[in-house]
């Protein structure tokens, strides 16, 4: 069993990053946050994460572009988050690859933690 569950949060909203850090506080989790897509991608390329939450609409590289650049992530669980979905018709490829889609505002924030707990390892 891994010592800690590693999470990467890529979102340009400070409160969202803070919320995740608070939600996954404690010794069981190691939370890394990135402010924008480029930073997040760099971090993801260098390190492995168990869970990655990516906001779609961000300045610079958006969520989809991060996925395209990373292209492969093994067993990592990836969820996209966003207030607006936009036109998803050309993102079908990625939608099939990711594990889920969280519309903002979150309907059930605590439920996110439950999901992580049930899918670790």
């Amino acid at each position, binding site marked *: 069993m891994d010592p800690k569950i590693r999470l990467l949060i890529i979102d*340009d*909203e*400070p*409160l*969202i990053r*803070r*919320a995740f850090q*608070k*939600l996954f506080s404690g010794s069981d989790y190691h939370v890394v946050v990135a402010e924008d897509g480029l930073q997040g991608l760099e971090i993801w390329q260098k390190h492995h994460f168990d869970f990655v939450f990516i906001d779609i*609409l961000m300045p610079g590289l958006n969520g989809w572009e991060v996925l395209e650049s990373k292209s492969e992530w093994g067993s990592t669980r990836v969820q996209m988050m966003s*207030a*607006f979905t936009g036109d998803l018709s050309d993102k079908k490829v990625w939608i099939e690859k990711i594990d889920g889609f969280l519309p*903002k*505002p*979150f309907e059930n*924030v*605590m439920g996110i933690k439950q999901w992580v707990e049930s899918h670790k390892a």
Partner: protein
Amino acid sequence: MQYWTSRAYEKSEADNSFKFKFKQHAQFSDLSQELGSVWFIELDHNPPVDPVIPKLRPPLLILLNSDNLADYQKVLNDWQPDILLLANQKSEIDGWIEKLQIQALTRSKKRQTQKTQMDRNRELELLAGNLEKLVEQRTQWIEASNREQRDLIRSDRRFVQFLIDLSFQNSKEELLNSFLQEFRKLRLAQEIYLLHQDSDHLTLQHFKGHNFQKIQFNESWWTSREIETLGENCSRKLSSVVGRPVGKLVVFPLPAYFENLATENWALVIERGSALALGEGDFSNIKKHVQALGLTLEKNRLENHNRLSALRWEKVFDGALDPIAIITKNFEILRHNKNFSKNENPIKKCYSVLAGRNDVCPQCPLVSTELESYEIQASHRTFQVMSHKIDESSEFFLHRYVDITDVQDKRVQFIQNEKLSSIGQIAEQMAHEIYNPLAGILALVEILLADETLLATTKADLIEIQKAAVRAQKVIENLQDFVSQENEVTAITLEEIIDKTLPLLKMNWRSYKLHLDLHTQSKKIHVQPQLISQVVYNLIQNACQSMEKGKSLQLKSFLTSDSVVLEVIDQGSGIPEALQASLFKPFFTTKATGEGTGLGLSLSKQFVERFGGKLTFSSRVGQGSTFRMEIPFGS
């Protein structure tokens, strides 16, 4: 012959003495040549028995030794002297002669006077006679010239009447017939022909019965192009065509009045049955008529041409799809086509007839000349005015009104869309900027609330924060819907639409007492929600703008047998009757320039009508207005 002595004495004019003229044995017949110069005669012895007693009229006759006066009777009768002296001796009469001289003188004067009088009388008679003759001559001459004048006048009057009659005749047939009748009456011709002569080809037209007959010959008869009498062979040739003997033919050229007419090829040919030659007066009479004929033919041709041109112009003018009018600079209509106004109006102002206004249209090109384009409103349509000066003095203008309502609508819609899309873009941007923090707040608050160690007060505060964030989120969502470009017709209730719209206007309606009385949740209408939302928004906004703060604003909704009805009732100042007719016109606004576009109501009406609905209102000045939106809930 018997001789007798006698002596004749003559009075001398010089000294009034009596000079012895002659003593005769001669016959007195010689004396007849000297009538008047013999004064008295002495007859000695017997009277002359000369069968020819000269015609003497001596004033004095002296008879010497005359025994028997009866013997002298004949002499006395013939000579009829004034004085007869009988003497026996000459010596007796010497003394008398002297006395006689004096008396004679007197008588001579008397005679003279008589003679003069007689002469004068005779002269007078002569004069009178002459005068009479002169007067008679003159009278005759005057009568003759009067007759001539009268004849001339009669002929002129006749000609003038003829000309007047001509002006009523429009067809060549009528014309030629008139001329023919006239010529026949004036005995100038028995038949007339209209001649057209090319270089080698000629046509004769004449009116026969009710028809025009054209006779053609491939030759040239009229070579001189002047007044010409045609030869007998021409008459014969014509005669063989018309089947009757043809008299003398005289050609009169029709005068060329206009340069572009080849009238030197045209002439009038008269046919004379009579052997009599044409007199000078006849010639000039015919020439006069021929001139008139030429003029009339030309006039008819021009009239026809003009009439056709006018007709064509009328058709174009009337048939034009755009309203067109010719107006003066004082806005009076001189002429208009059917699409300008169906009725014939007495002279009225253009802004009254076309636009139903009492004053000049704003943006009238006659008033403001620097605008790029001139647009006016008339009969709920928008027209662009194309204004053209007809003459240089700027008295008259031709105005063409191009209906640009549809273009205008499209333009308005386009602007609207542009606005909406840019609003949409801004809204999207803003929403994102606001949404994210809101989501962040809500997420964090939820997490904080999961902490069981929270103080009750802190928990309560956090819950308030959460509620506020949710409210903000709802507003953003409504705004999104409001500016949504989606064009989908959805089944939705009126209440849902009102629910989405009211928050957007809260800044407006919270100064008033808002009463909601909504009862149409059971029926859905099939509309594009954001459009009806805009209508509701517009109605509420107008209602608020018309009221003082604190008054009440009612929103009532209810069902009819086939529709959903929304009534927006305000307690505002009401809409004056004069403005009510124009309320739904595009760009109509009572707000000051820059404050409103006046698009609201006209677009609202369009939106409502798009879904089969109606937008109406009733209003009373001083009481307020009720706007009523009805939308059928059928399919």
